[in-house]
């Protein structure tokens, strides 16, 4: 695909995106793109650290310095920046998007975001430990089986050289509130974030299952749970073989690799979290979407969509997506490509086989209910300060309150 020629002036495409860890790779890809598209000039700025991205985007926009392409984190973002997001449903990339991957940022048949990639999470396990313990991880398809296996591993902790079966990071409340709860709460909404985002109330009928799962992880985790953060969980315990499995996603692979590349290559695998009714399905979803700024000139918008189309649908682009960015593609047409690592391979395979459930949590991560209600209440329960019933009650009340205030 070519940009619009005729005008000799270069079209400038500025990109602001929130996946800092891929900054270098994106720049490299942009350079490559500019080589074949001499009339486009791409400038990429990457802002990371969660709360940092949003203010930068806002100030860029409000100071008249808005980017052509920017990233969105889900329906809440899409709503916030509604005035700036162009409809992308006509793009080639949108048409090729895997089913369900754009639902969170689509309304009335219009698509406002293109997924960066898909990610999946489950229990990432240590192959070696499981083998030594004599357990086949793929057989852990129900909670009971899981529990039995956990107890078995726990009983031979010393022999296996681990400090705990799990490593549950109590400080990273999103592990429970986003990833785990999504599985149980999401069932009510078929894993559809958009639906959850728009619902007035939640029933949370499966909360007892969730409790069971939390309790199990807590009891058999490396202690003290409340002191552990992401680095403690991944870098310090799992990657060093101190935990048999952790509840995490494919994105931890680079971290493991940076700690111990041999271990990463040979020893990690991932299984779905056994949730009643959803056994054998891996939660797969998208955490970031590309949006194109509708306030820019058509030429610029065109150049922007051209770039995205190129990235996700052209042959060269596809190679970059998989091999440079190490993304699990959220698009069709990647058949036969080998994913770069063991975890993405798992995700890719589950999604290829359609053995997935959608992510429901982007439906609430952008709302204040998540940080103000869900996370603190779950942490309170985890640290023993609050009963489970009270926790569930607070979660439900909080959601109701928030949704009635929004009243849109």
């Amino acid at each position, binding site marked *: 695909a070519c940009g619009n020629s005729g005008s000799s002036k270069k079209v400038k495409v500025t990109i602001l995106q929130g996946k800092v860890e891929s900054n270098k790779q994106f720049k490299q890809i942009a350079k490559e793109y500019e080589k074949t598209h001499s009339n486009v000039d791409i400038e990429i700025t990457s802002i990371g650290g969660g709360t940092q991205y949003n203010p930068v985007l806002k100030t860029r926009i409000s100071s008249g310095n808005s980017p052509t392409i920017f990233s969105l984190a889900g329906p809440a973002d899409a709503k916030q920046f509604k005035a700036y997001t162009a409809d992308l449903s006509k793009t080639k990339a949108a048409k090729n998007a895997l089913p369900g991957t754009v639902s969170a940022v689509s309304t009335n048949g219009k698509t406002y975001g293109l997924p960066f990639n898909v990610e999946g999470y489950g229990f990432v396990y240590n192959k070696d430990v499981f083998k030594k313990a004599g357990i086949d991880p793929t057989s852990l398809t129900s909670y009971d089986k899981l529990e039995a296996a956990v107890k078995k591993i726990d009983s031979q902790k010393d022999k296996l050289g681990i400090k705990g079966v799990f490593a549950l990071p109590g400080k990273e409340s999103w592990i429970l509130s986003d990833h785990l709860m999504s599985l149980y709460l999401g069932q009510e909404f078929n894993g559809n974030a958009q639906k959850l985002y728009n619902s007035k109330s939640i029933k949370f009928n499966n909360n007892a299952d969730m409790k069971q799962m939390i309790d199990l992880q807590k009891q058999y985790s490396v202690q003290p749970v*409340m002191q552990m953060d992401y680095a403690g969980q991944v870098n310090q315990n799992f990657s060093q073989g101190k935990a048999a499995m952790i509840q995490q996603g494919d994105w931890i692979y680079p971290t493991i690799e940076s700690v111990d590349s041999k271990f990463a290559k040979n020893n990690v695998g991932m299984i779905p979290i056994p949730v009643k009714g959803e056994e054998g399905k891996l939660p797969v979803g998208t955490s970031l979407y590309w949006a194109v700024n509708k306030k820019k000139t058509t030429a610029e918008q065109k150049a922007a969509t051209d770039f995205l189309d190129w990235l996700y649908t052209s042959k060269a682009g596809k190679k970059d997506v998989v091999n440079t960015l190490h993304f699990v593609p959220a698009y069709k047409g990647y058949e036969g490509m080998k994913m770069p690592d063991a975890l993405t391979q798992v995700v890719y395979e589950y999604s290829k086989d359609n053995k997935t459930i959608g992510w429901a949590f982007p439906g609430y991560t952008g709302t204040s209910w998540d940080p103000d209600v869900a996370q603190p209440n779950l942490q309170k329960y985890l640290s023993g300060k609050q009963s489970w019933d009270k926790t569930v009650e607070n979660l439900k009340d909080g959601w109701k309150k928030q949704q009635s205030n929004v009243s849109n």
Partner: protein
Amino acid sequence: MKNRSLSFWLFLTPTLIALALVVFIPMLEGLFYSFTDWDGLSFTKVVGFQNYATLLQDKAFVNAFWFTVAFVIVTVIMLNVIGLGLALLVTQKFKGSNFLRTVFFMPNMIGGLILGFIWQFIFTQGFSALGTTLHLGWLNNWLTNEVTGFWGLVIVTVWQMSGYIMIIYIAYLQNIPNEVIEAAKIDGASAWQRFTKITFPMIAPAFTVCMFLTLSNGFKIYDQNLSLTNGGPYNSTQMLAMDIVNTAYNSSNFSLAEAKAIIFFIIVAAISLLQVFYNRKREVDL
């Protein structure tokens, strides 16, 4: 300098302009936004005092407020005592005093995030290792609850800021004319008496400045809060600034955040300025 004189105004102009453009005008805009439903980009309507009504019922805000107040009280005292103590220590002439100044000041040279990382490890691993060897139970499980979270924040803040406060005290200590100290020595004043009767009164401006700084910084503290506890566990260590930021960015409620900021400003200004005026009264022109 007469205030009708041209030079008075010329000397003040650059800073006044900068302050107006950078702080006051945006502040007034913010004040206006707090009466609207602003989302950081635009607003659709003016909502009057609704945001202010909301924030009064906002339990998180009230919790953050009291937590912050407690934090401020403790750190203001500790920082001033330790900062001044360090300043006095390193202004003694002994070998290595210059080196020590650098040491005490060094914590300021690193930014917030790294700080949190380092200290987390000290609290979680260093403390528990120490606790196990010394059989001191209270050294275990730091940062896992409100109390240890609070003291963790206090320790990090004190570690970092007291060198800062020290520097300011040193600058003022250096300004005391030597002859006055000599006169006090001749009058038979011991080191402690020289400090309480001469040095301290004469560095009263430093005390005012440092009180103000520790007070206002204590209220505004954000980085350490974010990097050490991130408000956790269960938001129990969330301070005012963090609550405001989270309101704005996590909940995308910018107008409410502005309202909180305004209330916050009024409270802090009242306390800090009161303190400044009280202290300024005791100062003397030499």
